[in-house]
């Protein structure tokens, strides 16, 4: 049994006077200790909602969560609120996209880090301060004693993200969910932060769920990848399979829209036409059909199932053939 098992997870947002929104639908996956799972998709594909649902951070009213989430043998959905609160920060933790808004602007960094230590490890006073300084040092913040006294706005973006990571890993959680941890950062800082996460996974054996829209991040870090579209997984595969031999038109679309050094000069980028809002309901069609170059008659009338096929699972009526996939995925692409 894996550390985290997500079975048929669904999240439905309902608001009075509006139609219900199925943000996540029938999502299943599992993550083992020391493994990194990438969750890729455009904005609105349900990546973040999936992670909030696992953490139990969705609002109680207005969001109906279905399915089953098992963490270390314990069912997270439907768990008592205080029990879940004891787990959060201790055994499962989360890193957010925008480190500036995820830190309290009027509270010094030091107090925000020591709060976790007090809450879960019972540390107070000098002990907590020393441990907080050690954590900042661990995530690569120079002069930690001084930084502890400072406020979030006095730190650079990269340092803020490091501080947030320090808070998340303070209790050596078994599972870390990183929701676009590098999106708000400079490219050079991105690489450092990813390296740091990689190191943490390797040293502590933490399971990492990395949510991103950046396939470059996935290529560098993830063992397995789930590609999500409009709340459902459309392709799930190990990293190598996904990059070398992508079969779902959406996956090839994502790969094709990345600028490449080895493409001929003047060769156009191939963006996916339309926007994520042009969807059909999954209940009677393939949601991606309106934007899909390979869509057939059947795509607008029959829901495709997520069918396991060797090293991957694929939800498509008309997958990209192997030869074409190789051209998009290409051996030449860096892994």
């Amino acid at each position, binding site marked *: 049994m894996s550390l985290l098992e997500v079975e048929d997870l669904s999240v439905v947002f309902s608001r009075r006077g509006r139609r219900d929104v199925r943000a996540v639908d029938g999502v299943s996956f599992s993550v083992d200790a020391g493994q990194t799972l990438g969750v890729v998709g455009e904005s609105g594909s349900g990546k973040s909602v999936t992670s909030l649902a696992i*953490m139990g*951070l969705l609002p109680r009213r207005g969001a109906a969560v279905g399915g089953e989430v098992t963490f270390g043998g314990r069912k997270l959905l439907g768990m008592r609120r205080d029990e879940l*609160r*004891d*787990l*959060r*920060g*201790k055994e499962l*933790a*989360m890193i*957010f996209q*925008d480190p500036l*808004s*995820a*830190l*309290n*602007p*009027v*509270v*010094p960094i030091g*107090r925000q880090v020591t*709060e*976790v230590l007090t*809450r*879960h490890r019972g540390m107070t006073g000098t002990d907590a301060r020393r441990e907080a300084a050690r954590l900042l040092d661990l995530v690569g913040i120079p002069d930690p004693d*001084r930084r502890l*006294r*400072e*406020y979030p*706005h*006095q730190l650079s973006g990269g340092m803020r993200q490091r501080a*947030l990571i320090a*808070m*998340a890993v*303070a209790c050596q959680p078994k599972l870390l969910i990183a929701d676009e941890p590098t999106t708000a950062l400079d490219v050079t800082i991105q690489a450092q932060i990813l390296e740091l996460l990689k190191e943490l996974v390797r040293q502590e054996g933490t399971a990492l769920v990395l949510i991103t829209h950046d396939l470059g991040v996935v290529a560098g870090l993830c063992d397995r990848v789930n590609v999500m579209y409009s709340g459902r997984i459309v392709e799930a595969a190990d990293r190598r399979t996904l990059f070398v031999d992508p079969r779902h038109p959406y996956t090839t679309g994502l790969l094709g829209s990345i600028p490449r050094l080895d493409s001929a000069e003047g060769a156009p980028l191939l963006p996916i036409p339309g926007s994520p809002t042009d969807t059909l309901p999954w209940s009677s069609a393939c949601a991606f059909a309106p934007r899909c170059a390979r869509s057939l008659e059947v795509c607008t009338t029959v829901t495709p199932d997520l069918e396991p096929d060797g090293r991957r699972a694929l939800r498509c009526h008309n997958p990209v053939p192997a030869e074409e996939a190789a051209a998009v995925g290409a051996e030449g692409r860096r892994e």
Partner: protein
Amino acid sequence: MTTATQVDAAGGVFSGDESGGGRWSEAFRRLRRNPVAILGAVLVLLFVLVAIFAPWLAPHDPQEQLLLGEVRPGFVPGPREGFPLGVDSLGRDELSRLLYGSRQSLLVGIVSTLLGLSLGLLLGGLAGAFGGRVDNVLMRVTDLMLSIPGLLTAITITVILGPSLTSVMIAIAIVNVPIFARLLRGSMLAQRDADYVLAARSIGLRRRTIVLSHIVPNSLGPVIVQATLTLATSIIDAAALSFLGLGNQDGTPEWGQMLAEAQDLLGTRAALAFYPCIAIVIAALGFTLLGEALREALDPKFRR
């Protein structure tokens, strides 16, 4: 504009250790550069110093009817040697009464604001922290209170409690409670969905910790500004209540009362009405300017 911001940021980094570099010390730095704030602070300081040192500054005892013998119906003696602003209708030195009057105004302003503030913070904090039914009940009560004009409520309360300085302070405090409660509650609700609250929940912090050490400190800015402005309105309200004869009854000088007494002499010695008016305006203006400047200093949108 950009340069100024950069200098600010750099200054923040370097001064981090000594001043903490938090939002308040940054606001204070901005406040010091704002001429309006300086003017407000000078007026407030003047007012406070006068109140403290009134016994040393005043040439006479404010209660002693020194020139009563010269007062005739409809006539009071004008300024003269030793009485630069003249005397009131009971022959008491006008300047001394003005100086001493600042003590009453300051006392009423501070006490009623603090009292209103603490009750308002308590109620607003409860509403903001618990939401739901608690919030609903408390906010309907504040709606009710806010729907009646403040001064009218204050007059009613003072009449019920019997005219005295304490009644005036209590009445003004009660009028201020719903204003503070509503402000803190709204400010807390705005913070509740902030990312850092989600982040705090993601590390398993208890609700009490999140409310007390994260949400409340972030919600206090507008409340502090309102408190400064309330000092001004409290002073004005106190004068109004005293003007109506609802203030202290022991002859202690009070600006509103002095104004009321001067009414009869408007035809002959209008200046007697003018002086307390000026005093009230200066005191209120000082706090208002300071409050407005503080609002600007704390508001990120005003940052220059």
